[in-house]
């Protein structure tokens, strides 16, 4: 059973990793923890649902449009709401993020109530047996897409000039501004990219699960737990944290109690904060004064 749990856990974990990565990118660029991020995932899922089910667009086109729409929404959230209060207290920024998330959720509830919606089957329904381990086409498509995107982001951040500029902003916004970088533009783009990556999570989730307006809650909790586990603010830590969390959930569920599946994200957050506050891959920041 263990090999199957690991494979299935990793397949689940890549989605947590994607959410954690996009939250981390926004956090690193803007120092804002977006507590409405889970609702952006929900937003992406519902936008692709509308485009595919109501507008009858092909899934791929609908998915790309959903990413574009959520990118624009992310930019809009920054320009219209966040930018105005960025110099204010962190609590106000956090509350604004929360309010935006609730606003999106409320909008979805107005349109769909608390209905749980099935998405048409998009991915082929194949399963392969590797010994006793079942690997499905869902697993491969979702994991392949997310891992492929992560590879692109890795190259973008570490090899290209744009990536190095972004990393400069990640390390010190004031320093980046002093050397002439347009930090506000970076914030704008990162809010857009963060929302688009959240939308990708929703677009990939939609065909393999059921959609409902409150689905962003569990997404946020797991994304946050993955960030904490990997090390708050580290990009590779967010990814690895997501993968580990996916496996831990299933292993605890199978070997300890299925009641642990839903609380394991909270258990991870508590344990990490108590035992290793910087997470598995984070580094303690030492400030010389």
């Amino acid at each position, binding site marked *: 059973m263990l090999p199957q749990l690991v494979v299935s856990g990793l397949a689940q974990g890549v989605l947590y990793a994607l959410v954690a990565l996009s939250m981390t990118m926004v956090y690193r660029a803007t120092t804002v923890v977006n507590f409405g991020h889970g609702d952006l995932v929900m937003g992406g899922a519902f936008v692709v649902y509308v485009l595919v089910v109501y507008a009858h667009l092909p899934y791929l086109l609908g998915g790309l449009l959903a990413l574009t729409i959520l990118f624009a929404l992310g930019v809009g959230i920054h320009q219209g709401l966040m930018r105005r209060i960025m110099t204010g207290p962190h609590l106000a920024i956090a509350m604004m993020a929360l309010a935006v998330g609730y606003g999106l959720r409320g909008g979805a509830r107005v349109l769909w109530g608390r209905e*749980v919606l099935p998405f*048409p089957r998009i991915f082929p329904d194949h399963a392969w047996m590797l010994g006793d381990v079942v690997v499905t086409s869902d697993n491969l498509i979702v994991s392949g897409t997310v891992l492929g995107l992560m590879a692109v982001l890795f190259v973008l951040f570490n090899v290209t000039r744009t990536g190095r500029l972004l990393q400069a902003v990640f390390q010190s916004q004031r320093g980046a501004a002093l050397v002439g970088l347009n930090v506000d533009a970076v914030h704008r783009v990162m809010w857009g990219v963060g929302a688009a990556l959240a939308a990708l999570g929703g677009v990939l989730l939609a065909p393999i699960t059921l959609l*409902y307006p409150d689905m962003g809650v569990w997404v946020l909790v797991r994304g946050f737990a993955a960030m904490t586990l990997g090390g708050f603010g580290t990009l590779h830590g967010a990814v690895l944290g997501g993968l580990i969390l996916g496996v831990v959930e299933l292993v605890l569920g199978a070997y300890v109690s299925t009641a642990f599946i839903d609380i394991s994200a909270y258990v991870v957050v508590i344990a990490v904060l108590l035992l290793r506050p910087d997470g598995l891959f984070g580094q303690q920041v030492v400030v010389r004064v």
Partner: protein
Amino acid sequence: MAFCHHTDEAINSAEVNMKTRTGFLTAVGLALLALALGAIPAGADSMQGITDTTIKIGNIGPYTGDASSYSALNYGPLAYFRYVNSQGGVHGRKFEIVAADDACKETTGIAAAKKLIHQDKVFMLLVQPCSGVAMATKPVVVEEGLPWIGVSANPKLTTPTVKNMFHVTYTGVYSGRAMARFALSKPNAKKVILVAHTNDWAKGYCDPATEYMKEHGVEPLMNLALERGSTDATAQSLRIKTANADFVLGCLYEAELAILLRDLHKYGVNVPVIGALGADFESTHKRVNNPAAVKNFYLPYQFKAPMGSPDMKKWEDMFVKFLEKGELPENGVPTNFYYFGLPTAIATVEAFKRAGPQPSREKFIAAMETFKDFDTGVLADKVNVTHDNHVGVQDMYAVGLNEQGKQTVYSAWGKPLL
């Protein structure tokens, strides 16, 4: 003579005094008797909502809000009352149905019930699909003493027995027991696993199912949790696979039930699964969206015959004839909920017939308690109500797909209804 006359007057006076005193004592005695019996408020209250030509009934339910799809449970009875009115009513009285919206919210529900009782002055309350709202309004209903016949599944509404409250549809207890009964009717089914949400709703089904199994010498092999909002049931599916279970009972909402079925199929676990009554058979099929994954899926079935059969078709025709456009689904085809609310109205009409031409609350309640093997023509079981038991129905069937993939109603494992 004067004496005599005087004596006569005295006697007359004494007689008058005696009569007055006797009348006074009789009145006091009757009043004390009424108090001693703890009688339901008599007179106008007892006849509230009844005129020479009408019977006013409160039809309470979630006509608006997130749970408004449950208002179909209110429209089924409405159609039946209109049908009865078209036949002349009962004892010369026609039914006047007053709808009140509880929006499936406790506070709104209490206000709606009070409005029906005190402002609209209805004789009784019917339907009330949302269990939480029904529980919240129960103290009002008990205090006012007016008859209540509801469809909400919470057994605590009518157990222990409440003088004026009745169930003629299934409570969660009997739905749970029906799940277990169907599972154990499979030959050699011993390894039964329960998968449930960790909330009161799921316990309402799984606890009676466990009780039934224990009564029949079967201990559940495992109790697995699958929380509300879960999107994955890998761990549960693998544990079921490892345990080589004979049957799975899913006390789950429809969405999570669909996820369990999907993942069981994904991991090649070919085990029969019976869900709880809260899920709809066809809707679950749609959510799973994979015919291979629902081949071994069943749900308790509360009706006496398969949908579309002549026994049920007559009710469909009645709904279509007596309900207006906004009261039917958009496609015009009544869902199962329309049928499930229907017995409340059928029992109400029957009780009014039995209560006679001068009905009162007491006579109505007494009439309800005479129901013995009463066939509603809708439900799988016949209604039996006594003074000590106000839960009228218990037994039900199961619905699943037969080998040809056709929806089939079973009285037990492998025994389709003819």
